[in-house]
């Protein structure tokens, strides 16, 4: 009797947990049921953090790719091919990302994957996709090593032919921030903090290097533990270091409280970060004292691009619950790049998908070129976006406001 009650309860708990998990990923395949009347179905995989701290950015990515797929279906953009998305949640964790990659590879209808958000997750997925010749386009990975190899500073070698990205790399983003902070904000003493992750540490390093070259002084460095929200010890160190600016390599769930606690400790200095903190949630978490904090983000401000305006309007019309956030435009373009590549492959093969569709799509991706939400979309020999724009945003009265944009034309 007792034994049975135990089993019953364990089963109930397990069922409960499973139900909840299912609930969490309830719209994993959102949009897949948007009617496919005959013809071939091509699945675009999406991998992003759909739950947890970074879900604001991740859900924006998922919805934007969904919008690209629906737009292609509605316009019948590729004759006889319907697009669906299959979205998987990586929780921002490399191990989960890798499992998702395996899962996407196993689904034969998947001809391209958009994602992930985190560079560390990207690192763990690249090989899985490359082995399967499945093309991956990341809208948000900014670590230079992903396309140019770990020794990118000295010798650039592309590690994986199937990996592309629409985002600009930290090799440009960090220095751009350094230039702005040193020359425009006239800050000379920086305290550099990072979260030790691939993205954060990489960004902090490129910033630090350029800041020193410009003649700036690094008065302190610190690596925080992203699992905690208590940065008071670090904040006190920052205050006593005499820094006039803080650079943080990392993401908004930590950057927000960090900014707040640094100001509370009595250091009224701006916190500067990369695209990982360019989110409305940063402002929410940093609170009122976050005014004046800066972030660089990839791309030109949305209001400057007519194509982006159209995207914003369509996104709104589609009725997604979550905002498209920092990477919406890049995600749409990543999804659309896959659609363009599929179109090319199908048209070259008399309107049908060839047997080695994955390899063909990967090949076609190299030469894709179209006017996307974020400007002209095409890829260089490393798989990096050729359009490299960056914008500095500042927190003003509780909102991000663009203060300066730059284009890399090297």
């Amino acid at each position, binding site marked *: *009797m*007792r034994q*049975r*009650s135990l089993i*019953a*309860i364990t089963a*109930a708990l397990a*069922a*409960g947990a499973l*139900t*909840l998990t*299912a*609930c969490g990923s*309830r*719209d994993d395949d*959102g*949009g897949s*049921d*948007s009617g496919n009347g005959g013809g071939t179905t091509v699945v675009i995989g999406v991998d992003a953090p759909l739950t947890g701290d970074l879900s604001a950015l991740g859900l924006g990515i998922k919805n934007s790719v969904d919008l690209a797929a*629906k*737009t292609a279906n*509605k*316009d019948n953009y590729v004759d006889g091919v319907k697009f669906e998305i299959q979205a998987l949640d990586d929780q921002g964790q490399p191990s989960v990302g890798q499992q998702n990659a395996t899962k996407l590879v196993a689904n034969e209808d998947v001809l391209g994957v958009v994602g992930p958000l985190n560079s560390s997750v990207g690192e763990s997925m690249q090989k899985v996709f490359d082995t399967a010749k499945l093309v991956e386009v990341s809208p948000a990975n900014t670590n230079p090593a992903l396309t140019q190899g770990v020794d990118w500073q000295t010798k650039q070698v592309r590690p994986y032919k199937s990996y592309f990205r629409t985002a600009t790399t930290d090799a*440009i983003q960090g*220095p*751009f921030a*350094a*230039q*702005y902070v040193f*020359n*425009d904000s006239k800050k000379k003493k920086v305290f550099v903090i990072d979260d030790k992750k691939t993205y954060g540490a990489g960004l902090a390093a490129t910033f630090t*290097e*350029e800041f020193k*070259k*410009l*003649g700036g002084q690094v008065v302190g460095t610190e690596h925080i533990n992203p699992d905690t929200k208590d940065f008071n010890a670090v904040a006190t160190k920052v205050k006593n270091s005499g820094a006039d600016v803080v650079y943080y390599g990392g993401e908004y769930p930590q950057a927000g409280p960090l900014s707040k606690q640094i100001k509370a400790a009595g250091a009224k200095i701006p916190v500067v970060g990369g695209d990982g903190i360019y989110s409305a949630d940063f402002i929410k978490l940093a609170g009122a004292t976050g005014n004046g904090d800066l972030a660089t983000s990839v791309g*030109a401000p949305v209001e*400057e*691009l*007519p194509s982006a*305006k*159209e995207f914003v*309007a*369509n996104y709104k*019309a*589609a*009725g*997604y619950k979550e905002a498209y956030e920092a990477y919406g435009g890049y995600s749409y373009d990543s999804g659309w790049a896959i659609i363009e590549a599929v179109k090319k492959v199908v048209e070259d093969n008399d309107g049908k998908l060839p047997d080695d569709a994955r390899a063909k799509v990967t090949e076609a991706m190299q030469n894709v070129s179209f006017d996307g939400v974020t*400007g002209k979309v095409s890829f260089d020999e490393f798989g990096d976006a050729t359009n*490299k724009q960056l914008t500095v945003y500042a927190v003003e009265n509780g909102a991000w406001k663009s203060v*300066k*944009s*730059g*284009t*890399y*034309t*090297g």
Partner: protein
Amino acid sequence: MTGGIGPVEPGEDTYLRNVTGRAGPGGRTAPSRTRHRRTVRAAGAALLLLAASGSLRADRAREPAEAPPPYPSQAVTLAYLDAAPGPGGARGGGFSFAVRLSVRSGPPVTVTRIAQPSAGLSVASSPAAPFQTKPHSDSKIIVTLRVTECDKAPRNPGFPFLDVTLRNTRAIQTHSFILGSRYARQLSQALQVACGNDSR
């Protein structure tokens, strides 16, 4: 001070097994199972509802937008060509180089100012700003940088850029053009010549 309320490291004979043996078998299992089942079923129903509402997303038409002229920063590209002899030769520690300004789309663009952000350098250009460019045209501009104060000039910038103020019928904008590594190399060479090779 022995304010503790509990034993430390109790042995395996800890008593609760006996205490709670009384908590009675039977009786509870059935209702508790129904309760759990009900919870699961309710959760399942909620799940279905959510899934249904998710699939009812609007899928409305994309409206073609009337295109106003593009922002000048989006219409213009600026590319580094090479170091070039400046209008006054290489006198006075100046570093001259040529850039190509292309107006890709939209109405003509006026370059109202060319600057660079470092405090120790001054900028001159030929043609001198402000000047206007034609639509869909390329024009070559010679930019000359002069060191005004070596202390404030960067020694070895990795990503130096030019701040160019552009105006067209849409807007006036200051945009940074990061001219790439060749420019960075040649600029730092020139700066080292101008300010000596003291390392910093």
